[in-house]
């Protein structure tokens, strides 16, 4: 490992300005497109599975003859396709592009990454069919059978190899905070997966290991690429450096140290040793520090530039995601307390919370990042600003309605369950209207995903005539994005924000 560092940083002579960015972007083209397109296919599959699962609450006797369509199989299939298929592969796709850009060097190990995509997709097919066919491991967040992970773990390790090779050839001295997050995630992801796949757990200890794992997949594998992207794209698009480097380091280390202890709050009030719950609640509360730090840093960066949200798809999606990160994390800290767990544990409130995290935060940032990256790797532009706008509003309003309905419905459900005078079937009856809202908002989000997939298809195949200039929602007044080199412009021309960090 020390070798890695010493051998590379000496060669700090990037290719001449202007051309290096084009060369670096081009070197990431194949793996980035492969990861993002695959991720999007799994997003569509995962969305359809989600809709089936959700509508089953309105029509419990719909599609019950076929075992593979029963709710208890469709639901984990949804979770695994969106977590391991969509957001993980999108994270690697976006992360790969950022990694090469921020290290100012061509991507190494492109073929390893292409092999990784192939293995990963095979694993996902095996896993999804496995769950539907009745081979679920029935452990939340790792339902896919071992056979699926036999493909996915090697796929992840190939990504690690490519990232390390690229890191060794970097042309920068200073490592921007996004590199920290991505580098740490690429270590944490495989560690988590391998540690929890070990066949050494059973009974109650398995439950604590389970939530250590599941919570950390969110916090240490899905969150870091999201934050890395937010730290890169917000300053990039608005054209000013990030507010404080010191805060960004503080945010990183507090996340790294606190987050991974928080998971067992999923078992508060359960049959686990008391000290475990207390530790987890304590660290959940301490998570307020990294969250506030990141929120302040992003807010102070963007302040005074909010009008740019009107024009730039990337900025709009990413800022939506960054704000959701603050919300979901503060909510997470508060809901770990015993009093609130007593009410909300076991209810739809938790489902709302998890979608605020994986969807409103991570998925929206992934969308925003993809809107920025794809024109640069395909040398084409997005077909239609109106469709991008439709995508934003269907997914933004969709997840907003989803979160609101399930939060209210879940809290009501929780309080009613605490009252033994309310019959259980009455509690069930009272949640039904909120579950209808979930199906409707889920439909809205799914429509958005198909719009996005269509736009992606158009840009990857370079369909039609090449649209003019970068894609904005509205005509941009002169000078708005000058400093940043534009939002959708194929190659940056003005000064680079991340280059400033080299000082």
């Amino acid at each position: 490992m020390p070798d890695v560092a010493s051998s590379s940083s000496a060669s700090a002579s990037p290719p001449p300005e202007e051309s290096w960015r084009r060369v670096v972007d081009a070197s990431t083209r194949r793996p980035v497109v492969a990861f993002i397109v695959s991720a999007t296919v799994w997003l569509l599959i995962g969305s359809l599975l989600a809709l089936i699962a959700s509508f089953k609450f309105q029509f419990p006797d719909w599609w019950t003859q076929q075992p593979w369509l029963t709710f208890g199989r469709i639901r984990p299939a949804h979770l695994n396709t969106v977590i391991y298929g969509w957001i993980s592969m999108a994270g690697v796709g976006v992360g790969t592009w950022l990694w090469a850009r921020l290290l100012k060097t061509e991507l190494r190990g492109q073929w390893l990454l292409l092999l990784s995509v192939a293995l990963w997709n095979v694993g996902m097919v095996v896993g999804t069919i496995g769950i539907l066919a009745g081979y679920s491991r029935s452990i939340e967040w790792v339902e896919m059978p071992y056979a699926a992970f036999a493909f996915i773990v090697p796929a992840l390790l190939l990504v690690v190899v490519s990232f390390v090779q690229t890191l060794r050839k970097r042309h920068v001295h200073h490592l921007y905070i996004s590199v920290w997050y991505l580098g740490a995630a690429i270590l944490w992801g495989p560690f988590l997966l391998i540690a929890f796949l070990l066949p050494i757990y059973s009974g109650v200890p398995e439950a604590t290991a389970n939530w250590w794992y599941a919570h950390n997949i969110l916090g240490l594998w899905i969150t870091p690429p999201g934050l890395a992207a937010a730290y890169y794209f917000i300053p990039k698009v608005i054209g000013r450096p990030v507010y404080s480097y010191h805060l960004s380091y503080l945010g990183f280390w507090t996340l790294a140290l606190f987050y991974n202890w928080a998971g067992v709050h999923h078992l508060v009030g359960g049959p686990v040793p008391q000290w475990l719950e207390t530790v987890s609640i304590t660290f959940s509360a301490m998570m307020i520090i990294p969250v506030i730090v990141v929120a302040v840093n992003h807010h102070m960066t963007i302040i005074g530039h909010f009008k740019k949200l009107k024009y730039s798809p990337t900025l709009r999606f990413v800022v939506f995601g960054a704000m959701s990160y603050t919300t979901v994390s503060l909510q997470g800290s508060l809901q770990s307390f015993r009093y609130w767990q007593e009410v909300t544990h076991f209810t739809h409130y938790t489902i709302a919370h998890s979608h605020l995290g994986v969807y409103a935060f991570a998925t929206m940032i992934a969308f925003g990042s993809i809107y920025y990256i794809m024109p640069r790797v395909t040398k084409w532009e997005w077909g239609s600003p109106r469709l991008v706008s439709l995508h934003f509003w269907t997914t933004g309003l969709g997840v907003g309605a989803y979160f609101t309905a399930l939060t209210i419905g879940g809290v009501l459900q929780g309080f009613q369950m605490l009252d033994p005078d309310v019959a259980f079937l009455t509690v069930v009856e009272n949640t039904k209207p909120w579950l209808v809202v979930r199906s409707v908002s889920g439909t809205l989000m799914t429509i958005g995903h198909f719009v996005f997939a269509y736009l992606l298809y158009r840009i990857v195949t370079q369909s039609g005539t090449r649209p003019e200039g970068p894609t904005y929602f509205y005509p941009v007044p002169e000078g708005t994005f000058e400093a940043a080199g534009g939002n959708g412009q194929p190659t940056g021309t003005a000064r680079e924000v991340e280059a400033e960090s080299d000082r």
Partner: protein
Amino acid sequence: MTRIVLVFLGAFAAIAMSFTALALLPSLQLSTIEPTPGTTDYTYDEQRGRDIYMREGCMYCHSQQVRPAGFGADQQRGWGDRGSRPGDYVYDETHQIGTMRTGPDLHDIASRQPSRDWHLAHLYQPRSVSPGSVMPAYPYLFEVKRKANVQPSEVTVPLSAEYAPPGDSVVVATHEALALYDYLMTLELEPLDDASNP
């Protein structure tokens, strides 16, 4: 340049610590735990039923964790006379504690609903015994056959006229449905001797 090493080492140390504390230590701490009274290893049929429980994802709507007195209203609801203990789970190769209660907790279901007829009817068509339930029906765990073809060894499911098959057909439980019932009947929390009742 040393900084990247620092980031990796720090990130690794952070996760290794929590892994040890949250995943490995509980295994050690609870490795010597005794099963609670009434908790026995699963028979072949019970384990088979448990596999079906896992395969069909019952966990996504039913927890197996009675909350302790003073935390929630599980015991007042009649879901168990005591909170669940780690010793209740010692034979569970894969835990099914669960995090969701779209349906009621099942950790003590055998005490409050031991009827085989009820469970089989409920699995075949939940709304036949629980009006307003959103639980899926599991018709594929049953067979519909002519009354004349039913073997003496087979178990017929009693159903109200509204949900019974037409004509002279009846609903017969498959081995899977019976095994699932056998498993559900292992979910019973016996009282503990010690005075402390969490």
